[in-house]
């Protein structure tokens, strides 16, 4: 069963009209998840909302929040002749301090794009003389796939498979945003796929502690419009609840099997986020029993010198403090072909999404 184009248009009109009718004051809603950012822009939702409803992007692009330090380390590994890097395509173009993985690849580094971390294992098996390093980035949704891959490698007795881990967890970043004095968010669209693993529990504090409405949201245009509608309804009614718009996928308890594997392999650790700095318990480190899969333990590198690009305001973008075109570089000295910051590169980066889909470049009539 699918909706016809007409049914879709009618449902969308219902929500947008409802939103427009119910909103009484300017509100700032944050879509935490980069996939939501992309979906919003691809479906042109921003143009459907009244001016008083402002959507800001959050810290939910795993590539964007990964600091240069990580990329510089990955690049340093890629330069070694005894390594093969496996990575999601997302990481290729992201600038580190001096270079990108794509540029290293062009210079001859053996860097292979995988769609699944599991694809790293045959590479390791077929290249016994090399260390195969998987760039393990991603949030709650992706981290279990890396953990399962580590277990598989263990079972297959592969000792030349390593992970360079920069996994991150969403709730600690939300907490940092809510606790910060500078940003004000009136409601959250919460990441449906992260919640599919973690369940609803980790997100309750948003409504309960901070009294901010929040909706776990799916990724179709209508899912998002409905979630915005729900937030506006709550705000209009003075409520602050955690709603689940994405019940077909998100169960209250999440996916306990996935969490078990995740917890078997990883333990929470402090992590650096671009724009936030260190956040306690917001990252994942391999447990001591699996430390022999850790790239930095097995192949220690000399100090990697790192610097963030001058003038880039990705940090503020990621914390929802500014929209991309508030950055003076945007669309001028910073474009997808000549990016300054990671947010202009990642497919889910707010700056890249703004640019690509025309926001801040073109005045929609």
């Amino acid at each position, binding site marked *: *069963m*699918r*909706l016809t184009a007409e*049914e*879709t248009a*009618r*449902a969308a*009109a*219902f*929500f947008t*009209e*409802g939103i427009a*009718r119910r909103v009484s004051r300017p509100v700032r809603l944050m879509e935490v*998840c*980069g*996939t939501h950012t992309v979906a919003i822009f691809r479906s042109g939702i921003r143009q459907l909302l009244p001016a008083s409803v402002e959507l800001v992007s959050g810290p*939910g*692009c*795993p590539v964007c929040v990964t600091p240069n330090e990580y990329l510089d380390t990955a690049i340093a590994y890629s330069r070694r002749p005894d390594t093969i890097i496996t990575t*999601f395509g997302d990481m290729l173009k992201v600038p580190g301090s001096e270079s990108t993985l794509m540029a290293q690849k062009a210079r001859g580094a053996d860097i292979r794009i995988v*769609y*699944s*971390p*599991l*694809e790293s294992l045959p590479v390791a098996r077929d290249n016994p003389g090399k260390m195969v390093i998987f760039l393990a980035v*991603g*949030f709650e*949704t*992706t981290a*279990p*796939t890396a953990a*399962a891959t580590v*277990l*598989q490698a263990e079972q297959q007795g592969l000792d030349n498979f390593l992970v360079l881990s920069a996994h991150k967890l*969403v709730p600690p970043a939300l907490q940092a945003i809510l606790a910060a004095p500078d940003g004000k968010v009136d409601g959250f669209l919460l*990441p449906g*796929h*992260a919640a*599919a*693993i973690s369940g609803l529990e980790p997100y309750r504090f948003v409504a309960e502690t901070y009294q901010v409405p929040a909706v776990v949201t*799916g990724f179709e245009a*209508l*899912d998002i419009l*409905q979630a915005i509608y729900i937030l506006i309804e709550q705000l209009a009614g003075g409520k602050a609840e955690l709603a689940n718009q994405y*019940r*077909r*996928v*998100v*169960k209250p308890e*999440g*996916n306990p*099997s*996935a969490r078990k*594997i995740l917890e078997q392999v990883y333990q929470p650790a402090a992590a650096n986020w671009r724009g936030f700095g260190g956040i306690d318990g917001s990252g994942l480190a391999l447990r001591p029993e699996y430390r022999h899969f850790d790239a930095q333990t097995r192949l220690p590198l000399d100090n990697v010198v790192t610097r963030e690009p001058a003038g880039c305001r990705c940090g503020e973008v990621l914390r929802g403090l500014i929209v991309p075109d508030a950055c003076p570089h945007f669309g001028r000295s910073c474009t997808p072909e000549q990016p300054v910051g990671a947010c202009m590169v990642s497919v*889910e980066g707010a700056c890249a999404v703004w640019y690509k889909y025309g926001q801040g470049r073109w005045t929609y009539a």
Partner: protein
Amino acid sequence: MCLAVPAQITERSEYMATVTVSGVTRQVSLMLLPEAAVGDYVLIHAGFAIQAIDEAEARRTLELFKELEQYAVDS
């Protein structure tokens, strides 16, 4: 932050399953969703099934979207 696609399981053997999305098939790991069975709709991400899709809920959402216009007329 995480692209994921609904797919239907058409075969499974141990911890691997064949899934299909509009006729396109792929092998995915069931390590993260060991209870999944042939016929189930699951969400796939990075080569793994990461969650089952509740068909009743899915249908309910679609029906809601279809019937919204009635509410719209009402309001």
